[in-house]
């Protein structure tokens, strides 16, 4: 199957090696073992399905980072026809970590944009391991605006550990480049379909991640911080990445449940890397369906719904509560209080106690 196997893929690899041996044996000795082979193949398929249906969050992160996993360019090759790559942000340079251009999917014209990882040292150096600089996001925006000009739907494919944390990146304002993309993507008058195909690394992913539909491949992940980064901060030890991955609720299932993703695109048993062709076909079908649906939506509705979709993301409480008076009362947990005093009343209460400086209801709360 592969020259690279994740620890939990070992049983599969062992069986595949055995199968290979069996085949060689059969050929060399001219003995018919087709029955054995068939049984072995079935067992491999079952084991694969079994292992892959029970992956932990951390294992999924590893699958999402699998060096043999199909990348943006692989999908473009399989899914699209007539890809014309367009280069550069017209300001600084051509960032190879984000690629894009014209293409057709199932006869439909699209602008396809995606983060690109490398397969070997040379290609990884070229595309900076899929970590874009500001010019990558600015190129993406240039292409998206052009798509809007020609009324072409936008497809983005995301697979990045994150935007590049480097001196030049900061000097050219990576944060601003991402922020502008976020704002502008809300206003683009064409359908946008976002797919997380591998790693959805924080702001670097979101920078081309605002859309009418957010799809995520079954074993891809999308997170505010890498599990290692989270572990380093909260556990003070990167080796707790497995625990952090669990806690961050970053898998496709978690995100669907939280309404942060619209659709999970099923991967073949054994993951996208075990059968890239099937994976590409499934993704193509999903993209076509969504293009079809969104194509029927009037532009105004599209933009309104896009805003409403992200507008609704977030979980918080807004019950009205007792005024918090730290330290001097026994209220150790204002969250547990169920009191529902009118806010203005609470505000006035605090104002009474307040001396000096502007009288705002907030004045009491921190002194």
């Amino acid at each position, binding site marked *: 199957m592969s020259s690279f196997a994740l620890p939990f893929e070992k049983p599969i690899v062992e069986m595949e090696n055995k199968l290979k041996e069996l085949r060689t044996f059969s050929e060399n000795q001219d003995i018919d073992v087709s029955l054995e082979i068939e049984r072995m193949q079935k067992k491999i398929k079952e084991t694969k399905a079994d292992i892959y249906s029970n992956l932990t969050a951390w294992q999924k992160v590893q699958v999402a980072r699998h060096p043999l996993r199909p990348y943006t360019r692989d999908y473009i090759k399989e899914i699209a026809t007539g890809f014309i790559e367009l280069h550069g942000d017209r300001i600084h340079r051509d960032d190879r970590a984000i690629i894009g251009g014209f293409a057709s999917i199932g006869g439909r014209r699209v602008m396809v944009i995606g983060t690109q990882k490398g397969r070997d040292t040379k290609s990884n150096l070229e595309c900076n391991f899929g970590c874009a600089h500001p010019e990558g996001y600015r190129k993406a925006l240039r292409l998206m605006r052009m798509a809007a000009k020609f009324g072409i739907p936008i497809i983005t494919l995301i697979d990045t550990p994150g935007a590049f944390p*480097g001196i030049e990146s900061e000097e050219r304002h990576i944060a601003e480049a991402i922020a502008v993309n976020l704002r*502008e993507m809300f206003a683009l008058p064409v359908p946008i379909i976002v797919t997380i195909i591998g790693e959805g690394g924080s702001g670097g992913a979101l920078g081309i991640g605002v859309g009418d539909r957010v799809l995520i491949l079954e074993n891809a992940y999308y997170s*505010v911080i890498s599990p290692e980064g989270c572990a380093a901060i909260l556990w003070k030890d990167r080796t707790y990445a497995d*625990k952090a991955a669990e806690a961050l609720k970053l898998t496709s299932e978690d995100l669907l449940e939280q309404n942060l993703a619209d659709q999970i695109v099923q991967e073949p048993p054994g993951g996208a890397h075990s059968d890239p062709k099937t994976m590409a076909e499934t993704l193509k079908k999903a993209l076509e369906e969504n293009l079809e649906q969104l194509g029927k939506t009037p532009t105004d509705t599209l933009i309104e719904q896009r805003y409403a979709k992200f507008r609704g993301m977030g979980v918080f409480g*807004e019950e*009205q509560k007792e005024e918090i008076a730290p330290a001097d009362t026994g209220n150790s947990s204002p*969250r547990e209080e169920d009191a529902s005093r009118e806010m203005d009343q609470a505000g006035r209460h605090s104002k009474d106690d307040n001396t000096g400086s502007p009288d*705002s209801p907030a004045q009491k709360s921190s002194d």
Partner: protein
Amino acid sequence: MALFGRRNYSTVKVKKRDIPAGMWLKCPACNEIMDTTILSQALWVCPKCSYHFQVTRDDRLAMLVEAGTFEEWDREFYSVDALGFTGVASYTAKLEENIQKTGCKDAVMCGRGRMGTHDVALAIMDFKFLGASMGSVVGEKITRLIERAIEQDLPVVICCASGGARMYEGLFSLMQMAKTSGALAKLHQRGLPYISLLTHPTMAGVMASYATLGDVILAEPGALIGFAGPRVIKETTQQDLPEGFQRSEFLLKHGLVDKVVPRKELRETIIQLLDFMMSDNSGTVRADSG
């Protein structure tokens, strides 16, 4: 030889407790020890070296808004532990700790107040509350602030400070970047001004959303401003960081910040900008509604 021989020093132990807590403060830049009442009157700027201390939301409010004009919005919003997040400490415990520490429910205060002749939609982020990290509450309150500004025809001023997104809320926190930026797209279309003030420190998720989307971006002197933290950059690139890297002045030079404004000129600068941006070509200041 004995004359110039090494002298043995004995260390003098200073009892820290001799100085009442909160009454005196040492400037981290010039080591000057100052009375906090004097410091507070000086808007928490070191009189000797102009080092800008971090200020509380109330101090910030007092220095910007006319006394008695501030009406707070969405004060009652509080964070919830949507993911059941447990690391070394649980998110709920962290929240409790910070609520106790600051007396506030979360990291941002929003509302409407008067600056000069303008009513403004104002947000003040408070670094003391969990590093002013952006979770659902911060995102929602900022979004509502912008939406209300559109409804009430108000300019928006946001005093930013943040360590980034609040990882305890997982991807919900990341999506606040999109949400707030989406609201700013609407404000943009309505032609209302937005002034973003970057204070020490403004980083990561907040930087990659509303902090850098101001029509005018102001910064307080010496503030740390950027996307990735300096340590992360150093570890990733193995490069030495340039002098003054990611500080306000560095960003002014590199073209992100419009103006670095000392704290005592801040209010006047914002009012001056609003006077200009909120008036039409005849010089008439746009009438306040509501």
